[in-house]
């Protein structure tokens, strides 16, 4: 009897923890939606800002965030996946490789403003890409690299040795086995890494602060060497600069809602792809 009571209390505590977590999550979505929804309109989504950021829309920032995120993933996914494949499939399991692995994981903990300064020094100044989509994408890409590498590594390691052996024993080369068996099997896990990185990259402010973002641009970016507006930086700027704090705050909440929605949408699509893949694999 006594044992049963302690057990029930234990379960109750765990349940309460879940409730508290859900309340936090729910209230984030509620507050952002309630405050953001007021300013969301067709005009808000399809036009540029007017009257010193106090009116009009935020389309340039939406587009900017889209380009930056896309650029970052286009850069980080092939590079990160290649690194993960090399580390998991080709490199000998040595001390040096372990050090490399640990270093990559630690890179994930570096504060993002440090990446921003790095991007400024390397891409903006050294390579002379200027404050641009290109510089921002590279900087965000480097931020996403450790996430993509470690998620891909985990996904690759989870592929059973037995099916690699099966493939090799049928006369497949090592690369053929990786391409035809290992990568397709690991794809859902790799996609998870990509989803996480998209969420992270789309919302980052510090890395693009000195490398890509502009408070206001006339019109839309013309090339990868243009500076851009971006949602997270736009929110930051609205809340810290300007002369009409109340109107600006409302717009900032609108931007947050859009950002939240974009990230959820991407995650949703990726989860759907993953589920489909699982369905085939199972």
């Amino acid at each position, binding site marked *: 009897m006594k044992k049963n009571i302690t057990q029930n209390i234990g379960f109750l505590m765990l349940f309460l923890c879940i409730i508290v977590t859900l309340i936090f999550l729910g209230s984030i979505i509620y507050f952002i939606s309630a405050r953001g929804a007021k300013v969301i309109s067709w005009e808000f989504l399809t036009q540029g800002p007017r009257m010193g950021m106090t009116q009009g829309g935020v389309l340039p920032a939406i587009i900017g965030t889209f380009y930056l995120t896309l650029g970052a993933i286009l850069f980080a996914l092939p590079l990160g996946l290649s690194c993960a494949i090399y580390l998991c499939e080709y490199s000998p399991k040595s001390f040096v490789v372990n050090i490399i692995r640990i270093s990559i994981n630690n890179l994930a903990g570096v504060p993002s403003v440090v990446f921003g300064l790095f991007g400024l020094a390397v891409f903006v100044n050294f390579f002379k890409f200027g404050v641009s989509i290109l510089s921002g994408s590279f900087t965000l890409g480097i931020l996403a690299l450790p996430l993509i590498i470690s998620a891909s590594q985990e996904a690759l390691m989870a592929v059973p040795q037995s099916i690699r052996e099966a493939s090799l024993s049928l006369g497949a080369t090592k690369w053929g086995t990786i391409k035809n*068996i290992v990568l397709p099997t690991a794809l859902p896990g790799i996609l998870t890494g990509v989803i996480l990185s998209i969420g992270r990259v789309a919302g980052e402010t510090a890395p693009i602060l000195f490398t890509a973002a502009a408070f206001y641009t006339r019109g839309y970016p013309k090339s990868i060497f243009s500076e851009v507006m971006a949602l997270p930086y736009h929110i930051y700027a609205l809340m810290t600069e300007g002369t009409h704090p109340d109107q600006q705050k409302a717009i900032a909440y609108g931007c947050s809602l859009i950002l939240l929605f974009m990230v959820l949408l991407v995650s949703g699509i990726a989860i759907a792809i993953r589920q489909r893949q699982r369905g085939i694999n199972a």
Partner: protein
Amino acid sequence: MHNRIKIKADSINFFYNKVQALKNINIDILEKQVTAIIGPSGCGKSTFIRLLNRMDELVPHTSITGKIYIDDVDIFHTSADPVEIRKRVGMVFQKPNPFPKSIFENVSYGLKINGIKDKSFIEEKVEMSLKKAALWSEVKDRLHESALKLSGGQQQRLCIARCLAVQTEAILFDEPCASLDPISTAKIEELILELKKEYTIVIVTHNMQQAARSSDYTAFFLLGELIEFGKTQDIFTKPNDSKTEAYITGRFG
């Protein structure tokens, strides 16, 4: 009947990290015959059979002395390509290991990696291989379902079909029935007798009855040594070595 030698192991010594797992093994495996390898766990049966299509290379820090010939070709010679050898000599593993793909894709995999694109040829080959593996009637209506939905015995026959689609000379079985029920086991044994008409077969087994029923020759391994090798009939009725006798009568191992 005089069958020629298909696979010849000549003075094989094999080491994992300097620990010797095989000691001076000499065996002649005859073409289109079933050769069984028996012996207690850890005596080196898997180690030996994996040498025959160079699957040993997947384990790092090993070394080997001696030679293995397939049709007089030295498979450890620097000019021999393991990929080519594995296209001739297939392997079926202890646990069924189908790819997480459809039944059809599993069987056509070997053709695909060989660059074969002719659809009707692939379809024919898949059907033929599944028929030879006695699986066709059970799966012909669901070729595009996941192979992981099949039962263990069906999965193992699928793995056999997968070999038959590409590998034309020999098939190595490493305890293929270890994880199967008696009915599935009987089916696989029947299949092996059928495959013998076209293939050279080597089968590792823990099951004495299985070795006695399905093999022509039997090799008895103990602690990395080949204790006795000969006609299955002789090994099981009048073994030369007292250790062989002790093992097959179940007194140890």
